């Protein structure tokens, strides 16, 4: 402690003595930080938005086809598996979801647009959506659908009409649909919007879909049942044409798809890595220029009896100062950019403490790495050349 108190903060004095060089360095680090924040933010919103449907499901155990890729490409399996599942002790209720992508006419622009259509039995509550509960009875009428108010696209006028209670009609697959309500889910990378309807209407809109081929099976367990045990029994009992997941496993599988199977997850990881490399290069440039500019002074310090270690300390001091100062604008700017991006894409993007700490850590590593490379320049500081 005393050693630190005695120390002249040479790194800080060197940096602050050249404000223009310092500003350039900080701008560079902030730039790299903003890039990392944006890439990581989009990646997180990818996972967030695409697992949202899975998280909204009101089920203890989920049955899904092994051919399913993600919430938009669920494939189908036989409804008989649902009835078989009801035989397992502990399973109290089983309900089917039908899901398909649907091309409909955007009621506002009259343009063909793709949305995800999900059909379910209106006597059950397969979704944990509070604003849906009051509207579920409406869905018992034929050709009635409810619409996600947080869908991506030009739906502003339609949504305000729906909020006022006006019924809006549009067309899909040659049928007239009447939108009689709204709920709140949110767009994802896979779907711009979501329509919910009854299983009856679903099958009427898409006559090629078969009542016996369902997309998801949602099972409710008795409160006293042991979920792990029931899942094990289901896996043993049901044939291999259906996968049994707990809700957490289903969410994880969805996330895994976007992380590894879709190129999108990889692109954002790559983008973050590129931003990191850009940051390393910028900070290295600044630090090595600084070392070069002070080689003679450093050699003098060595002649005075300072150890090589001391000079390494100066460079790392500079690296840490740059990382911390550069992080401040690099943290503030993305907060605004996240708002802009969230508005433009209807995706959930916001600053999180976890991500801020992660980028701060990456920034420190970035600057220390650059510092470590820049110390090689110190070899030039030879006090024997001073005289």
């Amino acid at each position, binding site marked *: 402690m005393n050693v630190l*108190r*005695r*120390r*002249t903060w*040479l790194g800080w*004095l*060197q940096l*602050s*003595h*050249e404000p223009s060089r310092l500003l350039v360095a900080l701008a560079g680090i902030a730039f790299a930080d903003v890039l990392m924040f944006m890439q990581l933010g989009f990646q997180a919103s990818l996972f967030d938005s695409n697992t949202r449907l899975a998280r909204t499901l009101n089920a203890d155990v989920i049955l899904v086809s092994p051919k399913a890729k993600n919430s938009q490409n669920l494939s189908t399996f036989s409804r008989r598996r649902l009835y078989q599942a009801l035989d397992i002790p502990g399973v109290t209720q089983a309900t089917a979801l039908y899901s398909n992508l649907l091309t409909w006419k955007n009621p506002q622009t009259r343009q063909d647009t793709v949305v995800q259509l999900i059909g379910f039995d209106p006597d059950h509550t397969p979704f944990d959506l509070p604003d849906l509960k009051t509207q579920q009875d409406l869905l018992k009428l034929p050709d009635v659908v409810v619409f996600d108010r947080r869908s991506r696209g030009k739906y502003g006028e339609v949504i305000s009409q729906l909020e006022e209670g006006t019924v809006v009609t549009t067309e899909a697959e040659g049928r007239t649909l009447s939108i009689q309500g709204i709920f709140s889910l949110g767009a994802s990378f896979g779907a711009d919007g979501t329509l919910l309807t009854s299983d009856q209407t679903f099958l009427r809109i898409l006559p090629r879909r078969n009542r016996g081929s369902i997309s998801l099976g949602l099972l409710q367990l008795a409160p006293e049942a042991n979920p792990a045990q029931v899942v094990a029994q289901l896996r043993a009992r049901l044939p291999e044409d259906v996968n049994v997941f707990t809700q957490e496993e289903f969410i994880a599988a969805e996330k895994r798809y976007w992380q590894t199977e879709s190129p999108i997850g990889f692109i954002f990881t790559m983008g973050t890595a590129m931003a990191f490399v850009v940051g390393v290069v910028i900070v290295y440039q600044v630090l090595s220029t600084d070392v070069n500019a*002070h080689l*003679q*002074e450093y*050699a*003098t*310090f*060595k*002649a*005075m*009896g*300072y*150890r090589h270690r001391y000079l390494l300390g100066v460079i790392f001091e500079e690296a840490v100062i740059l990382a911390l100062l550069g992080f401040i604008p690099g943290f503030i700017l993305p907060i605004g950019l996240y708002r802009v991006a969230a508005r433009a894409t209807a995706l959930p993007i916001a600053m999180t403490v976890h991500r801020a700490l992660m980028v701060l850590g990456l920034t420190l590593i970035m600057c220390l790495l650059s510092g470590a490379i820049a110390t090689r320049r110190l070899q030039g500081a030879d*006090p*024997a050349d*001073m*005289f």
Partner: protein
Amino acid sequence: MSNPNSAVLTIAHLDHAFGVGELRKQVLFDIHLTLQGGEIVIMTGPSGSGKTTLLTLMGGLRSVQKGSLKFLGLELCGATERQRVEVRRHIGYIFQAHNLHGSLTALQNVRMGLELHRQYSVAEMEQRASQALEAVGLGDRISYYPANLSGGQRQRVAIARALVSQPKLLLADEPTAALDRQSGRDVVTLMQHLAQEQGCTILLVTHDNRILDVADRIIEMEDGRLLASRTVNS
């Protein structure tokens, strides 16, 4: 205060060569030299005669290859890097260029000469550094950056930095080369005055005939050999 009669630096049978094999070139031959405490010695000689090499060996900036070089009784031939760094802390240096750190004020530059010596507290360092600057006549410039000082003033800060930790030996390489006549004279007089006050031994390499009169002894190097010394001021 060192005892004026004891030797600060003793050199015997010192040889030094650069390069290896075919390219090996010997630059110092059988040097014998003793610097007494408090003595001011001027070393002259044509460029390339080995003065600078001898100076870097004395200052612990280069490893001694052959012969004996003792600083305050410590043999530097075969000394470790660590020992040499330790020796450097007890020697003051003044270079041809002032080599002050441009991002540090005069006071901070001088303080750097003290920071290596653990016995001083922060307050003591500040106090000693400003006293050293006052002693070189720059008491009113302590918070100036080197860029805002004249050449003579910068060299005076360098002297304050070299002497602030009260070294036993001051090595100076052409300290007046970059200065005009009057500033050069002032700088040398100042060195002489301060060194005498502290009992510090000075070895000064110079081509400047105008300052030879400050020396107790003048030694001459030629082709890597030390010629007979002459004593002045006696």
